[in-house]
């Protein structure tokens, strides 16, 4: 008998995606809001189903693994997407993007991510990855009259396809070396290979390159700034949040669960990726004048920090990386959320100077943005600090002292451009005096998101315990 309990959330999302697609055809345009609520209901339903699932094991003929990690990450991906859709609702309505496609693509991307998170098999993993990526390419291109968005989508698609190709090629080599596509079998077969097996090592290099591309680590980061800047802000928000969680899951499933036998080889590669990401991301961000582009480079730097936790090759380090990924997505949601909140019809608010004097216009949102910025800079008591503490601690614990010192030095360099945003908001006079208008639910969610930056501090311990427990079956 086929056990489908653990994949019910995916099935629900898929069905609802179809329902949204159909509903759009039959609904009169003035009822279009229903599409939004249908999608939100689908996500809430998926989160609910995930929360009530207890089954552990591999199902679907070895394709899908249901474990704590799958459940925690799926739950979190749904939560993130709920917030993203809430932030984007008015933004896309004002720009004529409020269409069924937007929600259908969004839901399909979530299905893809959930499949990636629970993949036990190279084919499932690749299918999930492609489902997510193709949906995202289309979402970036959704604003079809904007040349910037089309350019971004083109770049994203070409480079993304290349990365998928690299990953697939690497997976095929691993298949050649071990004779299996199942991650668990590959993991068992690796230690039996001769040390320094060339096929497996070359395959690993391609896999790491593909993963690094999806994560956006230097030197595979070129797409990030263009996509972040060119895409509509609501899509940037989407691309910047949940897919990072899915990419983290890829690292866990492939490198940790699958290729732990080659740890010595991938550790060196990740060290390099990590240092380069922190260096290039933080330094190039200083030169940016566009907030979205600046946050794009900041993302690259954050991915470098996330890799610190994985580099340590210990279970506590993986938990630290997972915690970092979660904290990172919350911070980045807030940062882009404020940009969305400030933009209005025909005005994007994506230049740094648009933030000038925000404190005069709205002390509350300026304070929220301040919290997001200090969290990204990693200043206590914001949760950004505990995330950095966790990954740097993992690096020190594994004996990577030089890497840890590099990380903290780059975080000081990075602090400069976060401080610049605070400076613009608080120390400069406003040039644009237009009042900020936004829906009430958006304001509440953004406030909750901002408050989470410090209010979560007393519960950091529990959050990390959740991450540790989720990774218990892997590290």
């Amino acid at each position, binding site marked *: 008998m086929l056990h489908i309990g653990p994949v019910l959330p995916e099935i629900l999302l898929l069905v609802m995606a179809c329902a949204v697609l159909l509903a759009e055809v039959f609904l009169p345009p003035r009822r279009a809001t229903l599409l939004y609520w249908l999608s939100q209901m689908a996500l809430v339903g998926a989160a609910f189903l995930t929360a009530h699932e207890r089954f552990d094991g591999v199902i679907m003929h070895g394709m899908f693994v249901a474990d704590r990690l799958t459940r925690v990450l799926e739950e979190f991906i749904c939560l993130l997407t709920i917030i993203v859709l809430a932030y984007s609702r008015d933004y896309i309505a004002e720009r004529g993007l409020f269409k069924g496609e937007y929600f259908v693509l969004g839901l399909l991307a979530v299905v893809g991510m959930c499949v990636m998170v629970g993949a036990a098999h190279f084919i499932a993993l690749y299918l999930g990855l492609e489902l997510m990526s193709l949906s995202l390419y289309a979402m970036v291109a959704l604003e079809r009259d904007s040349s910037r968005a089309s350019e971004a989508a083109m770049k994203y698609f070409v480079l993304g396809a290349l990365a998928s190709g690299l990953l697939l090629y690497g997976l095929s080599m691993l298949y050649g070396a071990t004779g299996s596509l199942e991650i668990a079998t590959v993991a068992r077969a690796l230690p039996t290979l001769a040390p320094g097996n060339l096929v497996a090592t070359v395959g690993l290099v391609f896999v790491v390159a593909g993963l690094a591309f999806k994560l956006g680590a230097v030197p595979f980061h070129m797409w990030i700034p263009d996509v972040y800047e060119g895409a509509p802000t609501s899509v940037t928000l989407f691309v910047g949040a949940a897919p990072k969680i899915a990419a983290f899951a890829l690292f866990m499933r492939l490198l940790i669960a699958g290729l732990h036998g080659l740890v010595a080889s991938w550790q060196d590669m990740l060290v390099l990726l990590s240092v380069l990401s922190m260096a290039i991301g933080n330094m190039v961000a200083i030169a940016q004048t566009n907030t979205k582009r600046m946050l794009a480079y900041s993302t690259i730097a954050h991915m470098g920090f996330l890799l610190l936790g994985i580099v340590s090759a210990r279970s506590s380090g993986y938990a630290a990386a997972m915690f970092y990924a979660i904290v990172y997505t919350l911070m980045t949601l807030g940062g882009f959320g404020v940009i969305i909140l400030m933009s209005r019809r025909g005005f994007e608010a994506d230049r740094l100077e648009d933030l000038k004097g925000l404190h005069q216009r709205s002390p509350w949102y300026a304070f929220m943005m301040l919290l997001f910025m200090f969290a990204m800079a990693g*200043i206590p008591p914001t949760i950004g600090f505990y995330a950095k503490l*966790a990954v*740097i601690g993992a690096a*020190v614990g594994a004996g990577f002292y030089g890497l*840890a010192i590099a990380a903290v030095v780059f975080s*000081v360099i990075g602090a400069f451009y976060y401080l610049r945003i605070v*400076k613009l908001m608080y120390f400069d006079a406003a040039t644009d005096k237009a009042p900020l208008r936004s829906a009430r639910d958006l304001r509440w969610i953004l406030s909750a998101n901002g408050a989470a930056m410090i209010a979560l501090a007393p519960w950091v*311990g529990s959050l*990390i*315990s959740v991450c540790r427990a989720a990774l218990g079956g892997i590290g």
Partner: protein
Amino acid sequence: MTAMAAYDHLALSLVIWTPIAVGFLILFAGGRFPRLVRPLAALGSLATFLLTLPLWTEFQRGTAAMQFVDIRPWIPAFHVYYALGIDGISLPLVLLTSLIGLIVVIAGWSGVKERVAEYFAAFLIMEGLMIGVFCALDAMLFYVFWEAMLIPMFLIIGIWGGPNRVYATIKFFLYTFLGSVLMLVALLYLYFHAGDSFRITSLYDLPLREPTQIWIFLAFLIAFAVKVPMWPVHTWLPDAHVEAPTGGSVVLAAIMLKMGTYGFLRFSLPIVPHASHELAGMMIALSLVAIVYIGLVALVQEDMKKLIAYSSISHMGFVTMGIFLFNSLGANGAMVQMISHGFVSAALFLCVGVLYDRLHSRQIRDYGGVANRMPVFAALMMLFAMANSGLPGTSGFVGEFMVILGSFKVDIWYAVLAAITLLSGAAYTLWLYKRVIFGPVTKATVDSLQDVSPRETAFLAILAVAVLLLGVWPQPLLQVMHASLHHLLARPGVALAGTP
């Protein structure tokens, strides 16, 4: 009895979180009820001050053990505890902080005109965080307080500061941030060596090899030296002081600088005693450079705040020197000097603030003959100027004299060099005083000056009493800290070379 025990546990948490809670209350409610902001701030800081008084009376003298200890698990995954406690080294600093917190609120009562709620909220939150630094028994909790403090200070200088405030505040932030992140790496290293513990006491007496000790000492040194600040990483301080509003300067000089020297006593000496001995010569040399060279730099300043800022660096040199003499006189002198400098520098910055509020200038040449129009002010400032130049009978004398005596025991040349600068200290302070206060009134602006208001008299008088009290009768303070300092100097590694 149970109530007493409960109080013992909660006392420090109350002192830390009362001002922070009131600060957030002001931040959120201040926009809607602007008239309540000032009374609330005064109430909050007064309550905090009153809450610290029982700490002083209930504190057990004669033991080096931590008191009012409160330990709760916080982040079990990293074995981080919410651990608080005070000994004789931290208690005087906690009291100093709550007193200065109260004074800063009174001083900012009418001077601040815009974003009033944010101003008082920032100061109250910062006060709580600073007390937290002195009470934390867990290295990570210490680090959280230590870093979190940067946020309000960054905003205080940046929003309410002078014309060049953005440069000054970003410089201040990045300087101190760079210093402390290296300390973070050192703490993480120690964490793994202490068997996964961040408890400060469990980091003491770790068997660390010599080169490791040196590295850790240097990491701590960068963090603490930037805060003190020691020559040559002092350059952020004059900028920050000049640009900061009066209250910001007072907090910076009176409390924030003490965190660096507190760090030496709490972390460097007991955790890496061998490296501390090894590098004591360098530390004393750097301190002497600060005392002598920065004292001379102060002499040529045109800006009153800058002059006092350089004088602060010079006086803090006495503190770092006293600590690294490794004898009882030096350490006690350093502690007395820390407290005394807290009073004196706060008072001098407040005096400049009083003048600045009236004429909006900090340049010495814009004044002259102030005594003719502001006699009460002139008398009060005279006392603080004397204390700053180390006149016997004032608090400034006690600390400097003890440190100089202590340095005689180690090397007579240290003492000679340090003592020479009593001259330069007197020279720049009294010359400043002469140029600003004495002489005929030649400027119309000075002619129109009004003497200090009752509110201004009040906060200057509180500090004047403190300076005199500590100057003629330092015994209560010495009694409180003696046991803890003695215990610190008698630690196996620390006592190696010096004779406590």
